[in-house]
């Protein structure tokens, strides 16, 4: 039970928290087969935008269209096409890596639970630690497990909030390769990150958020770092 789509359109989206406007008339389109970077200083509205795209948060005005449908119109079916890796990893520390993945695989209604879980454990490089409690894992191991948790149901739209946090170089490179694989597989990947070193080589397009406004959205290039610094500098001025 899921809705398929080949683009996500953010149309004039605003979100207020009391008097504070976290997002201000944001417009953005992400297409299947691309990795879009969402950059911006702390408090720029990146996590709010990801929360709205994941249907956890409702916009104050404007809308998000997933292909031709909206979150309100498709509800549970749409959530079957969304995967979210938040800054918090959404894992149960009292359960083992395998139990966590089995729980979410069943919750998402995936067939052949044990095959899906074994494959996910392999991709997370956690086969040897599969039956250890997650509470004993390092941040990097949890991060890898959480990414596979978000991908268990093969979502069309993958939303990642600071996915490189806690990863060593090898795991970071493995994540880059994994995200490229997902892009080549026709997924839509939206990455909120501060890690420009990794972002520069990975992103097809970038959107920079500043004070809730979309500052620019264009093809990723070698001058990304310079432009990002300009945006942050302007925001702080």
């Amino acid at each position: 039970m899921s809705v398929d789509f080949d683009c996500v359109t953010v149309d004039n989206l605003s979100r207020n928290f009391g008097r504070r406007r976290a997002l201000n008339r944001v417009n953005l389109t992400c297409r299947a087969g691309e990795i879009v970077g969402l950059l911006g200083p702390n408090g720029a509205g990146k996590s709010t935008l990801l929360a709205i795209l994941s249907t956890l948060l409702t916009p104050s005005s404007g809308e998000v269209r997933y292909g031709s449908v909206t979150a309100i119109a498709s509800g549970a079916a749409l959530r079957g096409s969304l995967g979210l890796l938040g800054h918090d990893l959404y894992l149960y520390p009292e359960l083992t890596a395998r139990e966590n993945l089995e729980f979410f695989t069943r919750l998402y209604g995936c067939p052949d639970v044990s095959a899906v879980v074994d494959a996910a454990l392999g991709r997370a490089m956690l086969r040897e630690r599969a039956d250890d409690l997650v509470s004993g894992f390092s941040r990097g191991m949890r991060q890898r497990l959480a990414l596979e948790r978000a991908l268990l149901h093969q979502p069309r739209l993958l939303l990642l909030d600071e996915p490189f946090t806690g990863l060593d170089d090898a795991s970071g490179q493995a994540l880059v390769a994994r995200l490229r694989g997902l892009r080549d597989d026709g997924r839509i990947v939206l990455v909120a990150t501060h890690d420009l070193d990794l972002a520069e080589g990975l992103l097809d397009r970038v959107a920079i958020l500043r004070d809730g406004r979309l500052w620019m959205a264009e093809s990723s290039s070698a001058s990304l770092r310079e432009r990002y610094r300009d945006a942050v500098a302007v925001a702080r001025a």
Partner: protein
Amino acid sequence: MTQFLRVAWIVMRKDLTVEVRSREILYTTVFFAASCVLVFAFALVREGRPMEDAAAGILWIAIAFAGTLALGRTFERERQTETLRALMLAPSDRPAIYVGKLLGILLLLGVVELVLVPMVALLFNAPFGASLGWLIALLAGGTLGFVSVGTLFAAMLVRARSRDVLLPVLLYPITIPIIIAGVRGTVALLQAVPDEPMARFWAALLVFFDVVFVTLALWTFEPLMTE
């Protein structure tokens, strides 16, 4: 419907697995409820003779307090790991998540009541065994009503800064009719000759409350949980 019940079952099983592994909520609630009964027993039992109808009141007060503790801790666990968000992202009806959490807390309180009832019977000389069937009906109805409202409020308050204060403040005024019905029904059973027609009346009233509260909770859970 099958999908709804499947998701509820998965969530309940996960909660029980986590609880069996940590035993945090079970131990806390059982010790708290037992301490509560013990303190009241010292205050209200003189020379082996308890104050009239005290047993019913103490039993339900202990259930309400233990239930509040269990509700708070269950959702605190989800808050610490932000896993409630992951549950909300599941491609299923969100009320199924509510039902799963509700069933988990019900089972937990059922275990607490298994300890509480004999303890109250012993310390307050309460002849619960005379109408055990009706007592079970009253406890089941009362616990379901209390937990149905409590699960909704605890989930709703999971992001509130003052959630520990707000939960009892919101929960008790609304569940007072349930607790009163439970107490009056239990008092009827503790008479020299158990007043079963009266117990039946209060049990029926509890069923009515349960239907109303569960229906309202299922109806409002999704909009309340969407931020």
